[in-house]
Structure formats: structure tokens, C-alpha cells
């Protein structure tokens, strides 16, 4: 019941926010950025795997919201609408990326090839071994997530990381509920296969430790 109450409050807040956005209130856009800039950036980053591209796409998402808010008919929630725009913009950017970015030179890759790498600042939380273990696990999961098909990845990210419901994912990706279930199932299967492979290669006992 509290969760339902929280959802209703969030929906009421978003309704009020949409009304003020339609009036062109500057404070409303500030509030929109406060609430959704981080999640949208994180979602787009996982779809594109490029921080600068993710920042550009996030900016484009909010520009589209600004341009189209007057035509927003509240047929879906503001959150779903934002994520739907993000999916479209990320898909457009991925298509553009595949056509134009093949021959670009990456400074990061060049440094890594030269064995220079980047300086990492120490994190004071937990022991270094704990941090390293968690960091390695997270890096492996991130890496495996990047390897799976982008459509399956979008569904898995929306469900497992962004915490969207199946109905919200269906509305965001504009697919049926059955397709959502299928994509999540297939995405997790693909992720599981890659994870098992990578974790076993990295530490033979790691995966079994997770399941004990």
C-alpha cells in the first residue's frame, strides 16, 4: 500500500509538473532536470556505452521535451514519455554512430594501448580487497551487459537497473507485454551466459560463491 501511495504521489507530482512545463515555467524545467537528468543519462549511457554521446543524447532528450511538451496528452506518464524519447534518440545516435564513428581516433584507447591508463583515485569505503572484488564484479557485469543485443539490453536495464514495471517498459519501448517478458528473459539468459563465462575465467569460485 505505501508503494501504491508513493506511485500515486509521484503521478500527482508529475501531473503538476507537466501542467507547469506546458506553461513554460523555468522552475518546472529545473525540477524536471533534478528528477530525471541522472536516470536518463544513466539509461542512455548503458545503451550507447559512451559518456560524451550519452551526455549529448540526454541534452537532446530534454530539448525534445521542451519542444513537444505542449503536445503531450498524458496518454502515458511523464517518466515513460521521457524514457521513450531517450530510447528513440539513443537508437538514432547508435545508427549515426555506426555510420560515422568507425574511423575516429580514441584518446582513451590510445593511452590504454600505450600502457599509460588513467589514474584512479582511491575509495575509502570498505577494505581495498572488498572494493576491488566489488569493482571487478561490477566491471564484468557492465562489460557483459554491453555485449548483449541493444533491444534486449534496453529491456534488462529498464527492469533491473531503473526498476520499471513490465507495463512501463512496454509503454516506453512501444512493444507488447509478452514481448517485454520475452526480451527480459532472453536478455537475462544472454547476460547469464556471458557472466558465467567471464566470472569462471576470472575466478573459478566466484559464480558458485554468488549462489551459495
Amino acid at each position, binding site marked *: 500500500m505505501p508503494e501504491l501511495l508513493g506511485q500515486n504521489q509521484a503521478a500527482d507530482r508529475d501531473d503538476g509538473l507537466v501542467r507547469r512545463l506546458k*506553461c*513554460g*515555467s*523555468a*522552475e518546472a*524545467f529545473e525540477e524536471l*532536470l533534478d528528477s530525471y*537528468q*541522472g*536516470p536518463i*543519462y*544513466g*539509461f542512455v*549511457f*548503458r545503451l550507447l556505452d559512451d*559518456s560524451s554521446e*550519452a*551526455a549529448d543524447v*540526454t*541534452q537532446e532528450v*530534454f*530539448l525534445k521535451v*521542451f*519542444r513537444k511538451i505542449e503536445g503531450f496528452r498524458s496518454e502515458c506518464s511523464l517518466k515513460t514519455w521521457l524514457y521513450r524519447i531517450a530510447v528513440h534518440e539513443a537508437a538514432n545516435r547508435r545508427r549515426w554512430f555506426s555510420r560515422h564513428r568507425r574511423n575516429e581516433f580514441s584518446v582513451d584507447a590510445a593511452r590504454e594501448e600505450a600502457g599509460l591508463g588513467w589514474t584512479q583515485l582511491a575509495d575509502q569505503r570498505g577494505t581495498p580487497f572488498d572494493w576491488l572484488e*566489488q569493482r571487478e*564484479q*561490477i566491471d564484468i*557485469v*557492465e562489460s557483459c*551487459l554491453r555485449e548483449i543485443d541493444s533491444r534486449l539490453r534496453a529491456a*534488462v536495464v529498464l*527492469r*533491473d*537497473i531503473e*526498476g520499471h*514495471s*513490465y507495463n512501463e517498459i512496454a509503454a516506453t519501448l512501444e512493444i507488447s507485454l509478452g514481448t517485454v*517478458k520475452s526480451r*527480459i*528473459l532472453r536478455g*537475462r539468459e544472454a*547476460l*547469464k551466459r556471458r*557472466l558465467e563465462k567471464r566470472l569462471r575465467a576470472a575466478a573459478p569460485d566466484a559464480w558458485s560463491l*554468488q*549462489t551459495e
Partner: protein
Amino acid sequence: MNCTWVRHSIDSYIDGELSPASQGLLRLHLRFCSGCFEAYDRRESMTMLTSRLGAPAPPSELRTQIKIALSYEAARRGFWNWDRFRDRTRDMLRPLAVPAVGGVFSALVLFGGLMQHLGVMPRLFADDVPLLYVAQAPEVELPSPYAVNHDTVVLVFIDRSGGIYDFDLPEEPHDSPELRAQVANSLLFARFQPAMRFGSPVSSTMLIQFTRTTVRG
């Protein structure tokens, strides 16, 4: 209820998207099927691992970039409304707020101080000498014992000592020498109190009406 259905429904079960009845059936199956329980356990571990990824922090300058892009877009579209007008007016007037409040406060203090003086002024006027005492008309001090045997009006010119230095008969354009002689005799023996202005005697004029009264003896 078979293992195929359970394996297919594990994700929906973990995500809380199964109906309560199906959840109960799946839980029952997991209790007795070690293979399905292991699949469920692995899937749940992996989901937990994925959910721990969290959201990557956006670049610190992203918010500024978005706001700049929005402002350009707003300028391009000629976007203008009451809220923006209010915000701009408020930003524009904000530096003037403190001086304006100080000015109003100073004006109130000054006006309050002046009002004290203004409040005294009517009382000062009330204490003034009335106009009646400032200018006093001439008066007949001693009437003449000689009468004028005619109804007429005489304009008398009185000097500052109360003496008469001239007179005129405004209602008698063709005044007779006899009437003029009567008036002159009458005025010769009359005495006047001169007009006063601010306490000093001044020359003045006075109208005297003579009325003939017949008494039967």
C-alpha cells in the same frame, strides 16, 4: 505445473509480475524441485548483481549544457510567457530592493517628522489676532448737533487724526449749494474715531446716511 513453465516464469516471479495464484504454485514447485530452485537461485543472484550497478553519475557540466541549450531554444522560438516575464522582472528589480526599502523607510521617517510640525501649524494660526482687530473701521465718536434737512448719503474722508478733510454726496449728482452747506455745517461739529490698522490710525472713508424725520408737535 512442470519444470518448463517454472523455468519460463522465474523472471516474472522475481520481478513480482506473476499472479498471486501462480506465485504460490511456483513457490511450491521450487520447494520440491532442486533443479528449478538452482535455476531460480542463479537468476536471482544475477538480477541482484545487475541491480547493484547503479546509475553512472552524469558529467558535472551536463546540467549547465542542457540549460544553455534550452535557453537558446527558448530564444529561437521567441518563447515568452508570464513566468519568464515575472522571473526577469524579479531578477532586474532585486538589486533595487534594498535601496527602495531604505528610501521608503527614510521617506516615512521624514514625513513623520514633518507631520509633527504640520500638526502645530493650525494651532499657531488659531492663536493669531483675528482680522477684526487687525483692521478697525472708523466710528462716529460724537454726532453733530446740526441736522441735515434732507434724505441723503454722504461719503466722508477722514484723516488719521479723526478730522474730516473732504466729503462727497454720491447720490446727489446735481447737489444744491444749500444741501452741501447743511452737510458741511453738520460735519463740522461731528467728531470721529479714525480707522485703525495693526494698532495704528490710518486715513479712511465712511458712508453716513442722513434721514429726515418729521415729528408732529
